[in-house]
Protein backbone atom coordinates (compact mmCIF):
# COMPACT_ATOMS: atom_id res chain seq x y z
CA UNK A 1 0.00 0.00 0.00
CA UNK A 2 2.77 2.32 0.89
CA UNK A 3 4.52 1.58 -2.38
CA UNK A 4 1.49 2.31 -4.44
CA UNK A 5 0.97 5.56 -2.70
CA UNK A 6 4.53 6.53 -3.46
CA UNK A 7 4.04 5.55 -7.05
CA UNK A 8 1.19 7.86 -7.37
CA UNK A 9 3.11 10.73 -5.92
CA UNK A 10 6.60 10.35 -7.41
CA UNK A 11 7.40 8.40 -10.61
CA UNK A 12 11.19 8.58 -10.30
CA UNK A 13 11.51 5.51 -8.09
CA UNK A 14 9.61 3.24 -10.44
CA UNK A 15 12.58 1.04 -11.33
CA UNK A 16 13.15 0.02 -7.75
CA UNK A 17 9.55 -0.91 -7.35
CA UNK A 18 9.26 -3.66 -9.99
CA UNK A 19 8.42 -7.07 -8.62
CA UNK A 20 10.90 -9.95 -8.47
CA UNK A 21 9.22 -11.74 -11.31
CA UNK A 22 9.36 -8.70 -13.50
CA UNK A 23 13.04 -8.34 -12.85
CA UNK A 24 13.74 -11.92 -13.81
CA UNK A 25 11.77 -11.65 -17.00
CA UNK A 26 13.33 -8.39 -17.98
CA UNK A 27 16.82 -9.82 -17.97
CA UNK A 28 15.80 -13.18 -19.31
CA UNK A 29 17.26 -14.81 -16.23
CA UNK A 30 14.66 -17.49 -15.65
CA UNK A 31 14.87 -18.97 -19.12
CA UNK A 32 18.63 -18.90 -18.91
CA UNK A 33 18.65 -20.66 -15.56
CA UNK A 34 16.22 -23.22 -16.85
CA UNK A 35 18.42 -23.76 -19.84
CA UNK A 36 21.59 -24.20 -17.84
CA UNK A 37 19.98 -26.61 -15.38
CA UNK A 38 18.63 -28.69 -18.26
CA UNK A 39 22.07 -28.77 -19.83
CA UNK A 40 23.73 -29.57 -16.56
CA UNK A 41 21.43 -32.51 -15.98
CA UNK A 42 21.76 -33.78 -19.51
CA UNK A 43 25.52 -33.65 -19.49
CA UNK A 44 26.18 -34.57 -15.88
CA UNK A 45 29.73 -33.29 -15.96
CA UNK A 46 32.34 -34.55 -13.54
CA UNK A 47 32.77 -31.08 -12.14
CA UNK A 48 29.37 -29.33 -12.19
CA UNK A 49 30.67 -26.09 -10.75
CA UNK A 50 33.23 -25.52 -13.45
CA UNK A 51 30.61 -26.52 -16.00
CA UNK A 52 28.31 -23.79 -14.68
CA UNK A 53 31.16 -21.31 -14.54
CA UNK A 54 32.07 -22.06 -18.14
CA UNK A 55 28.51 -21.76 -19.25
CA UNK A 56 28.00 -18.37 -17.68
CA UNK A 57 31.35 -17.12 -18.82
CA UNK A 58 30.61 -18.02 -22.40
CA UNK A 59 27.14 -16.51 -22.29
CA UNK A 60 28.11 -13.25 -20.62
CA UNK A 61 28.69 -10.63 -23.23
CA UNK A 62 32.18 -9.71 -22.07
CA UNK A 63 33.58 -13.14 -22.68
CA UNK A 64 31.49 -14.29 -25.58
CA UNK A 65 33.48 -16.87 -27.48
CA UNK A 66 33.69 -15.78 -31.05
CA UNK A 67 35.90 -18.60 -32.09
CA UNK A 68 33.67 -21.32 -33.45
CA UNK A 69 36.29 -23.96 -32.82
CA UNK A 70 36.47 -23.12 -29.13
CA UNK A 71 32.72 -23.17 -28.92
CA UNK A 72 32.55 -26.58 -30.55
CA UNK A 73 35.27 -27.94 -28.29
CA UNK A 74 33.39 -26.66 -25.30
CA UNK A 75 30.24 -28.39 -26.46
CA UNK A 76 32.13 -31.61 -27.01
CA UNK A 77 33.90 -31.59 -23.68
CA UNK A 78 30.83 -30.75 -21.68
CA UNK A 79 30.08 -34.40 -21.08
CA UNK A 80 31.81 -37.76 -20.99
CA UNK A 81 31.67 -39.59 -24.28
CA UNK A 82 29.92 -42.56 -22.74
CA UNK A 83 26.79 -40.56 -21.99
CA UNK A 84 23.96 -40.61 -24.51
CA UNK A 85 23.86 -36.83 -24.75
CA UNK A 86 27.38 -36.94 -26.19
CA UNK A 87 25.87 -37.89 -29.53
CA UNK A 88 23.68 -34.81 -29.43
CA UNK A 89 26.67 -32.69 -28.56
CA UNK A 90 28.57 -34.18 -31.45
CA UNK A 91 25.82 -33.17 -33.84
CA UNK A 92 25.62 -29.68 -32.33
CA UNK A 93 29.36 -29.23 -32.65
CA UNK A 94 29.37 -30.56 -36.17
CA UNK A 95 26.64 -28.14 -37.18
CA UNK A 96 28.49 -25.29 -35.55
CA UNK A 97 31.68 -26.13 -37.37
CA UNK A 98 29.95 -26.73 -40.66
CA UNK A 99 28.81 -23.17 -40.47
CA UNK A 100 32.31 -21.74 -40.37
CA UNK A 101 33.21 -19.47 -43.21
CA UNK A 102 35.82 -20.83 -45.57
CA UNK A 103 35.72 -18.21 -48.27
CA UNK A 104 33.39 -15.46 -49.38
CA UNK A 105 30.59 -17.76 -50.35
CA UNK A 106 31.62 -21.10 -48.99
CA UNK A 107 30.70 -22.39 -45.57
CA UNK A 108 31.64 -25.76 -44.17
CA UNK A 109 34.27 -27.66 -42.29
CA UNK A 110 37.57 -28.46 -43.86
CA UNK A 111 40.62 -30.36 -42.70
CA UNK A 112 42.24 -27.29 -41.17
CA UNK A 113 39.35 -26.63 -38.82
CA UNK A 114 39.07 -30.30 -38.07
CA UNK A 115 42.71 -30.36 -37.09
CA UNK A 116 42.25 -27.42 -34.77
CA UNK A 117 39.44 -29.22 -33.00
CA UNK A 118 41.48 -32.38 -32.62
CA UNK A 119 44.45 -30.45 -31.30
CA UNK A 120 42.27 -28.70 -28.78
CA UNK A 121 40.86 -32.02 -27.65
CA UNK A 122 44.32 -33.53 -27.30
CA UNK A 123 45.98 -30.63 -25.56
CA UNK A 124 46.87 -32.79 -22.56
CA UNK A 125 48.25 -35.61 -24.66
CA UNK A 126 52.07 -35.82 -24.68
CA UNK A 127 53.49 -34.24 -27.83
CA UNK A 128 54.94 -37.37 -29.46
CA UNK A 129 51.69 -39.24 -28.97
CA UNK A 130 49.67 -36.37 -30.30
CA UNK A 131 51.85 -36.21 -33.35
CA UNK A 132 51.41 -39.90 -34.07
CA UNK A 133 47.67 -39.68 -33.52
CA UNK A 134 47.24 -36.72 -35.82
CA UNK A 135 49.30 -38.42 -38.48
CA UNK A 136 46.67 -41.13 -38.50
CA UNK A 137 43.47 -39.17 -38.21
CA UNK A 138 44.09 -35.67 -39.48
CA UNK A 139 42.81 -34.65 -42.86
CA UNK A 140 44.36 -32.39 -45.43
CA UNK A 141 43.45 -28.75 -45.13
CA UNK A 142 41.40 -28.76 -48.29
CA UNK A 143 39.40 -31.88 -47.55
CA UNK A 144 35.77 -31.70 -46.52
CA UNK A 145 34.91 -33.52 -43.34
CA UNK A 146 31.88 -35.77 -43.24
CA UNK A 147 30.05 -36.41 -40.02
CA UNK A 148 31.18 -40.02 -39.74
CA UNK A 149 34.82 -38.97 -40.00
CA UNK A 150 34.26 -36.16 -37.54
CA UNK A 151 32.50 -38.44 -35.12
CA UNK A 152 35.05 -41.22 -35.13
CA UNK A 153 38.09 -38.97 -34.94
CA UNK A 154 36.67 -36.93 -32.08
CA UNK A 155 35.67 -40.12 -30.35
CA UNK A 156 39.17 -41.52 -30.75
CA UNK A 157 40.63 -38.39 -29.14
CA UNK A 158 38.37 -38.75 -26.14
CA UNK A 159 39.09 -42.42 -25.70
CA UNK A 160 42.80 -41.76 -26.03
CA UNK A 161 42.59 -39.23 -23.21
CA UNK A 162 40.97 -41.81 -20.98
CA UNK A 163 43.45 -44.42 -22.07
CA UNK A 164 46.35 -42.18 -21.12
CA UNK A 165 44.85 -41.53 -17.70
CA UNK A 166 44.61 -45.26 -17.21
CA UNK A 167 48.13 -45.95 -18.38
CA UNK A 168 49.41 -43.28 -16.00
CA UNK A 169 47.68 -44.96 -13.12
CA UNK A 170 49.01 -48.29 -14.30
CA UNK A 171 52.50 -46.89 -14.16
CA UNK A 172 51.88 -45.72 -10.60
CA UNK A 173 50.88 -49.26 -9.76
CA UNK A 174 54.00 -50.68 -11.37
CA UNK A 175 56.27 -48.10 -9.85
CA UNK A 176 56.60 -49.77 -6.48
CA UNK A 177 59.24 -47.51 -5.02
CA UNK A 178 57.39 -44.38 -6.14
CA UNK A 179 60.62 -42.95 -7.53
CA UNK A 180 59.67 -42.92 -11.19
CA UNK A 181 61.66 -46.04 -11.92
CA UNK A 182 59.43 -48.96 -12.64
CA UNK A 183 61.15 -52.21 -13.42
CA UNK A 184 61.57 -52.78 -17.12
CA UNK A 185 60.64 -56.46 -17.12
CA UNK A 186 57.45 -55.75 -15.30
CA UNK A 187 56.41 -52.95 -17.63
CA UNK A 188 57.29 -54.85 -20.73
CA UNK A 189 55.46 -57.97 -19.65
CA UNK A 190 52.29 -56.07 -18.80
CA UNK A 191 52.33 -54.16 -22.05
CA UNK A 192 53.15 -57.25 -24.04
CA UNK A 193 50.18 -59.00 -22.51
CA UNK A 194 47.94 -56.08 -23.46
CA UNK A 195 49.37 -56.00 -26.97
CA UNK A 196 48.74 -59.68 -27.47
CA UNK A 197 45.19 -59.42 -26.26
CA UNK A 198 44.50 -56.61 -28.67
CA UNK A 199 46.17 -58.23 -31.62
CA UNK A 200 43.84 -61.18 -31.42
CA UNK A 201 42.16 -61.05 -34.78
CA UNK A 202 39.31 -63.49 -34.22
CA UNK A 203 35.97 -62.04 -35.04
CA UNK A 204 33.57 -63.69 -32.66
CA UNK A 205 32.93 -63.70 -28.97
CA UNK A 206 35.87 -66.03 -28.36
CA UNK A 207 38.17 -63.10 -28.83
CA UNK A 208 36.64 -61.29 -25.89
CA UNK A 209 36.80 -64.38 -23.73
CA UNK A 210 40.40 -65.09 -24.63
CA UNK A 211 41.52 -61.53 -24.22
CA UNK A 212 39.96 -61.13 -20.83
CA UNK A 213 41.43 -64.44 -19.81
CA UNK A 214 44.86 -63.31 -20.97
CA UNK A 215 44.57 -60.24 -18.80
CA UNK A 216 43.06 -62.03 -15.84
CA UNK A 217 44.95 -62.27 -12.58
CA UNK A 218 45.87 -65.92 -13.10
CA UNK A 219 47.45 -65.65 -16.50
CA UNK A 220 49.04 -62.35 -15.61
CA UNK A 221 50.54 -63.84 -12.52
CA UNK A 222 52.05 -66.81 -14.31
CA UNK A 223 53.40 -64.65 -17.13
CA UNK A 224 54.96 -62.13 -14.78
CA UNK A 225 56.30 -64.87 -12.58
CA UNK A 226 57.97 -66.47 -15.59
CA UNK A 227 59.38 -63.18 -16.83
CA UNK A 228 60.73 -62.31 -13.43
CA UNK A 229 62.40 -65.65 -12.98
CA UNK A 230 64.30 -65.34 -16.25
CA UNK A 231 64.87 -61.68 -15.64
CA UNK A 232 67.31 -60.52 -18.27
CA UNK A 233 67.10 -56.79 -17.84
CA UNK A 234 67.80 -56.58 -14.15
CA UNK A 235 68.30 -53.04 -12.96
CA UNK A 236 66.82 -51.44 -16.05
CA UNK A 237 63.98 -49.02 -15.70
CA UNK A 238 61.09 -47.51 -17.55
CA UNK A 239 60.42 -43.85 -17.04
CA UNK A 240 56.90 -42.54 -16.77
CA UNK A 241 56.90 -40.93 -20.20
CA UNK A 242 58.49 -43.91 -21.84
CA UNK A 243 55.81 -46.18 -20.43
CA UNK A 244 52.92 -43.92 -21.37
CA UNK A 245 54.21 -43.51 -24.91
CA UNK A 246 54.67 -47.23 -25.37
CA UNK A 247 51.19 -47.88 -23.99
CA UNK A 248 49.64 -45.33 -26.31
CA UNK A 249 51.44 -46.94 -29.24
CA UNK A 250 49.43 -50.04 -28.50
CA UNK A 251 46.31 -47.94 -28.51
CA UNK A 252 47.24 -46.21 -31.74
CA UNK A 253 47.75 -49.53 -33.44
CA UNK A 254 43.98 -49.95 -33.20
CA UNK A 255 43.31 -46.59 -34.80
CA UNK A 256 42.74 -46.82 -38.53
CA UNK A 257 44.66 -44.66 -40.92
CA UNK A 258 42.28 -42.38 -42.79
CA UNK A 259 42.41 -42.82 -46.49
Amino acid at each position, binding site marked *: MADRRKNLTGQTVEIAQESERQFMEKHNVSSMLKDVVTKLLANRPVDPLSFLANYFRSSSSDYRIDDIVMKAVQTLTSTHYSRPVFETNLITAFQLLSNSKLSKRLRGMNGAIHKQVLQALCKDVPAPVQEKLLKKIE*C*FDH*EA*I*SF*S*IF*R*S*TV*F*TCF*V*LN*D*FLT*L*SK*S*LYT*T*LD*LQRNGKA*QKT*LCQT*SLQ*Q*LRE*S*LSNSKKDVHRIME*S*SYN*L*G*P*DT*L*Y*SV*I*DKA*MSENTSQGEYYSHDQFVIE*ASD*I*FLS*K*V*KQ*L*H
Partner: protein
Amino acid sequence: MNEKWEKPINCTIKHTVTLSPSSGRATASQGIPFHSGCKAIDVYFPSVINPEASEGGEIIGAVEFQNDYAAFITIRVKTKATDQATKPASSDQDWKTVVNAFKLMPDCHAEMGSQDTFCITRKQFACDLNNVISLRFILQQPSPMWKDFNIHKIKLFKSSGNRKHFALPNWLTESGSSKPRRKELEPGNDLMTKTEMPKVVGVPDIDILSSNLQQMWALAEEAAANQPEQSIGRYEVDGCYDINLLAYT
Protein backbone atom coordinates in the same frame (compact mmCIF):
# COMPACT_ATOMS: atom_id res chain seq x y z
CA MET B 1 40.50 -89.30 -14.92
CA ASN B 2 42.74 -91.54 -12.90
CA GLU B 3 42.78 -89.08 -10.07
CA LYS B 4 39.05 -89.26 -9.83
CA TRP B 5 38.46 -92.97 -10.15
CA GLU B 6 41.81 -94.41 -9.15
CA LYS B 7 42.42 -97.93 -10.46
CA PRO B 8 39.94 -99.78 -12.63
CA ILE B 9 37.89 -102.37 -10.82
CA ASN B 10 39.18 -105.90 -11.10
CA CYS B 11 36.74 -107.85 -13.23
CA THR B 12 36.52 -110.51 -15.91
CA ILE B 13 35.44 -109.35 -19.33
CA LYS B 14 34.07 -112.12 -21.55
CA HIS B 15 34.40 -112.33 -25.30
CA THR B 16 32.01 -110.45 -27.46
CA VAL B 17 29.00 -112.53 -28.40
CA THR B 18 27.09 -111.92 -31.60
CA LEU B 19 23.38 -112.33 -31.13
CA SER B 20 21.56 -114.03 -33.94
CA PRO B 21 17.91 -114.88 -34.36
CA SER B 22 18.59 -118.51 -35.21
CA SER B 23 20.10 -119.40 -31.90
CA GLY B 24 17.47 -117.55 -29.93
CA ARG B 25 20.02 -116.85 -27.22
CA ALA B 26 23.55 -115.63 -26.93
CA THR B 27 26.08 -117.97 -28.52
CA ALA B 28 29.63 -117.61 -29.62
CA SER B 29 29.85 -116.39 -33.18
CA GLN B 30 30.25 -119.33 -35.50
CA GLY B 31 30.39 -117.60 -38.82
CA ILE B 32 26.65 -117.15 -39.14
CA PRO B 33 25.97 -115.27 -42.38
CA PHE B 34 23.11 -113.30 -40.93
CA HIS B 35 24.13 -110.06 -39.28
CA SER B 36 21.82 -109.19 -36.48
CA GLY B 37 23.62 -105.93 -35.79
CA CYS B 38 23.61 -106.74 -32.11
CA LYS B 39 26.35 -107.96 -29.82
CA ALA B 40 26.69 -108.52 -26.13
CA ILE B 41 29.62 -108.49 -23.75
CA ASP B 42 29.31 -109.86 -20.26
CA VAL B 43 31.40 -108.67 -17.37
CA TYR B 44 31.73 -110.71 -14.19
CA PHE B 45 33.25 -109.72 -10.95
CA PRO B 46 35.76 -112.15 -9.49
CA SER B 47 34.38 -112.67 -6.03
CA VAL B 48 30.90 -113.94 -5.52
CA ILE B 49 30.29 -111.31 -2.96
CA ASN B 50 30.77 -108.08 -4.76
CA PRO B 51 33.80 -106.31 -3.23
CA GLU B 52 32.17 -103.03 -3.97
CA ALA B 53 29.25 -103.77 -1.73
CA SER B 54 31.35 -104.95 1.17
CA GLU B 55 33.25 -101.71 1.35
CA GLY B 56 30.10 -99.91 2.13
CA GLY B 57 28.56 -97.48 -0.27
CA GLU B 58 31.22 -97.83 -2.90
CA ILE B 59 29.73 -98.37 -6.28
CA ILE B 60 30.69 -98.32 -9.92
CA GLY B 61 31.07 -94.73 -10.89
CA ALA B 62 32.14 -94.83 -14.49
CA VAL B 63 32.55 -97.05 -17.50
CA GLU B 64 35.27 -96.31 -19.97
CA PHE B 65 35.83 -98.01 -23.32
CA GLN B 66 37.07 -97.41 -26.80
CA ASN B 67 34.49 -97.64 -29.52
CA ASP B 68 35.04 -99.59 -32.70
CA TYR B 69 32.07 -98.84 -34.95
CA ALA B 70 29.27 -99.57 -32.51
CA ALA B 71 26.40 -97.15 -32.91
CA PHE B 72 24.50 -97.63 -29.66
CA ILE B 73 25.30 -99.10 -26.33
CA THR B 74 22.92 -100.41 -23.72
CA ILE B 75 24.23 -101.42 -20.33
CA ARG B 76 22.27 -103.79 -18.15
CA VAL B 77 23.17 -104.85 -14.67
CA LYS B 78 22.39 -107.87 -12.57
CA THR B 79 22.27 -107.03 -8.93
CA LYS B 80 22.10 -109.13 -5.86
CA ALA B 81 19.58 -108.54 -3.13
CA THR B 82 21.48 -107.74 0.05
CA ASP B 83 19.95 -110.56 2.11
CA GLN B 84 21.17 -113.26 -0.30
CA ALA B 85 24.58 -113.74 1.14
CA THR B 86 26.21 -116.55 -0.81
CA LYS B 87 24.74 -117.82 -4.04
CA PRO B 88 24.32 -115.50 -6.97
CA ALA B 89 20.77 -115.31 -8.17
CA SER B 90 20.36 -116.45 -11.74
CA SER B 91 16.80 -115.48 -12.53
CA ASP B 92 16.37 -112.84 -15.18
CA GLN B 93 14.22 -110.60 -13.07
CA ASP B 94 17.29 -109.10 -11.47
CA TRP B 95 18.43 -107.46 -14.70
CA LYS B 96 18.06 -103.72 -14.74
CA THR B 97 18.82 -101.32 -17.54
CA VAL B 98 21.45 -98.80 -16.52
CA VAL B 99 22.03 -97.07 -19.80
CA ASN B 100 19.52 -97.43 -22.60
CA ALA B 101 20.67 -97.15 -26.23
CA PHE B 102 23.32 -94.53 -25.59
CA LYS B 103 24.34 -93.05 -28.92
CA LEU B 104 28.02 -93.54 -29.68
CA MET B 105 27.91 -92.54 -33.32
CA PRO B 106 25.68 -89.56 -34.12
CA ASP B 107 25.01 -91.01 -37.53
CA CYS B 108 25.46 -94.76 -37.68
CA HIS B 109 26.38 -94.63 -41.38
CA ALA B 110 29.06 -92.02 -40.88
CA GLU B 111 32.50 -92.24 -39.42
CA MET B 112 31.99 -89.78 -36.60
CA GLY B 113 32.44 -91.25 -33.12
CA SER B 114 33.40 -94.63 -34.48
CA GLN B 115 36.85 -94.71 -32.88
CA ASP B 116 36.29 -92.50 -29.87
CA THR B 117 36.94 -93.35 -26.30
CA PHE B 118 33.82 -92.93 -24.21
CA CYS B 119 33.40 -92.55 -20.52
CA ILE B 120 29.88 -93.01 -19.24
CA THR B 121 29.62 -91.72 -15.73
CA ARG B 122 27.18 -92.10 -12.90
CA LYS B 123 25.33 -89.04 -14.03
CA GLN B 124 24.15 -90.92 -17.10
CA PHE B 125 23.20 -94.07 -15.22
CA ALA B 126 19.55 -94.75 -14.65
CA CYS B 127 20.28 -96.38 -11.31
CA ASP B 128 23.17 -96.77 -8.91
CA LEU B 129 25.48 -99.69 -9.58
CA ASN B 130 25.84 -101.32 -6.21
CA ASN B 131 25.73 -105.01 -5.27
CA VAL B 132 26.61 -105.83 -8.82
CA ILE B 133 27.03 -109.43 -9.87
CA SER B 134 27.55 -108.87 -13.56
CA LEU B 135 27.21 -106.26 -16.24
CA ARG B 136 26.15 -106.80 -19.80
CA PHE B 137 27.03 -104.42 -22.61
CA ILE B 138 24.70 -104.69 -25.56
CA LEU B 139 26.06 -103.13 -28.73
CA GLN B 140 23.95 -102.26 -31.72
CA GLN B 141 24.94 -101.27 -35.21
CA PRO B 142 21.98 -100.90 -37.58
CA SER B 143 24.11 -99.75 -40.49
CA PRO B 144 25.29 -102.39 -43.01
CA MET B 145 28.19 -100.13 -43.95
CA TRP B 146 30.61 -101.64 -41.46
CA LYS B 147 32.03 -105.11 -41.62
CA ASP B 148 32.22 -105.55 -37.91
CA PHE B 149 31.79 -103.61 -34.72
CA ASN B 150 32.91 -103.93 -31.16
CA ILE B 151 34.19 -102.03 -28.18
CA HIS B 152 37.62 -102.44 -26.63
CA LYS B 153 39.52 -101.60 -23.50
CA ILE B 154 36.54 -101.74 -21.18
CA LYS B 155 37.41 -100.36 -17.79
CA LEU B 156 35.16 -99.91 -14.81
CA PHE B 157 35.95 -97.40 -12.15
CA LYS B 158 34.80 -97.02 -8.61
CA SER B 159 33.02 -94.02 -7.41
CA SER B 160 33.81 -93.03 -3.86
CA GLY B 161 30.17 -92.20 -3.41
CA ASN B 162 31.15 -88.58 -3.30
CA ARG B 163 28.82 -86.63 -5.48
CA LYS B 164 31.15 -83.68 -5.63
CA HIS B 165 32.73 -85.08 -8.77
CA PHE B 166 29.73 -84.02 -10.72
CA ALA B 167 29.13 -80.67 -9.12
CA LEU B 168 30.44 -77.65 -10.95
CA PRO B 169 33.89 -76.62 -9.82
CA ASN B 170 33.94 -73.90 -7.21
CA TRP B 171 35.57 -71.29 -9.35
CA LEU B 172 32.74 -71.55 -11.81
CA THR B 173 29.90 -71.29 -9.37
CA GLU B 174 31.46 -68.61 -7.22
CA SER B 175 30.77 -65.41 -8.98
CA GLY B 176 32.70 -63.46 -6.40
CA SER B 177 36.16 -61.95 -6.45
CA SER B 178 39.08 -63.38 -8.32
CA LYS B 179 40.88 -64.47 -5.18
CA PRO B 180 39.13 -67.77 -4.58
CA ARG B 181 39.43 -68.41 -8.27
CA ARG B 182 43.14 -68.22 -8.16
CA LYS B 183 43.16 -70.50 -5.19
CA GLU B 184 41.31 -73.04 -7.23
CA LEU B 185 43.52 -72.82 -10.25
CA GLU B 186 46.88 -72.58 -8.62
CA PRO B 187 46.66 -74.11 -5.22
CA GLY B 188 50.41 -74.55 -5.01
CA ASN B 189 51.32 -71.02 -5.92
CA ASP B 190 48.74 -69.26 -3.94
CA LEU B 191 50.70 -68.87 -0.75
CA MET B 192 53.52 -67.40 -2.71
CA THR B 193 51.22 -64.95 -4.41
CA LYS B 194 49.92 -63.70 -1.16
CA THR B 195 53.07 -63.31 0.85
CA GLU B 196 56.19 -63.43 -1.21
CA MET B 197 55.30 -61.56 -4.36
CA PRO B 198 55.22 -57.97 -3.19
CA LYS B 199 58.32 -58.37 -1.04
CA VAL B 200 60.69 -60.62 -2.87
CA VAL B 201 59.80 -60.46 -6.54
CA GLY B 202 58.75 -56.86 -6.45
CA VAL B 203 55.44 -57.15 -8.22
CA PRO B 204 52.42 -55.00 -7.36
CA ASP B 205 49.01 -56.37 -6.50
CA ILE B 206 48.15 -58.55 -9.45
CA ASP B 207 44.43 -57.86 -9.16
CA ILE B 208 44.83 -54.11 -9.51
CA LEU B 209 47.24 -54.64 -12.37
CA SER B 210 44.84 -56.97 -14.09
CA SER B 211 41.80 -54.74 -13.76
CA ASN B 212 43.83 -51.79 -14.99
CA LEU B 213 45.02 -53.67 -18.04
CA GLN B 214 41.54 -54.94 -18.75
CA GLN B 215 40.15 -51.43 -18.68
CA MET B 216 42.83 -50.29 -21.09
CA TRP B 217 42.01 -53.21 -23.32
CA ALA B 218 38.34 -52.28 -23.26
CA LEU B 219 39.10 -48.69 -24.21
CA ALA B 220 41.28 -49.68 -27.10
CA GLU B 221 38.63 -52.07 -28.29
CA GLU B 222 36.04 -49.34 -28.02
CA ALA B 223 38.16 -47.03 -30.10
CA ALA B 224 38.72 -49.76 -32.64
CA ALA B 225 35.00 -50.38 -32.88
CA ASN B 226 34.39 -46.73 -33.66
CA GLN B 227 36.76 -46.32 -36.54
CA PRO B 228 35.21 -44.84 -39.67
CA GLU B 229 33.94 -47.30 -42.22
CA GLN B 230 33.88 -45.00 -45.19
CA SER B 231 36.98 -43.53 -46.71
CA ILE B 232 37.35 -39.85 -47.36
CA GLY B 233 38.24 -40.63 -50.92
CA ARG B 234 41.89 -39.89 -51.26
CA TYR B 235 43.58 -40.91 -54.43
CA GLU B 236 47.03 -41.00 -53.06
CA VAL B 237 48.68 -44.01 -51.56
CA ASP B 238 51.63 -43.40 -49.22
CA GLY B 239 51.87 -39.81 -50.33
CA CYS B 240 52.00 -40.61 -54.06
CA TYR B 241 49.31 -40.41 -56.67
CA ASP B 242 48.70 -43.18 -59.04
CA ILE B 243 48.89 -41.45 -62.37
CA ASN B 244 46.55 -43.97 -64.02
CA LEU B 245 43.87 -43.21 -61.50
CA LEU B 246 44.06 -39.52 -62.22
CA ALA B 247 43.96 -40.07 -65.94
CA TYR B 248 40.47 -41.49 -65.77
CA THR B 249 38.99 -38.69 -63.71
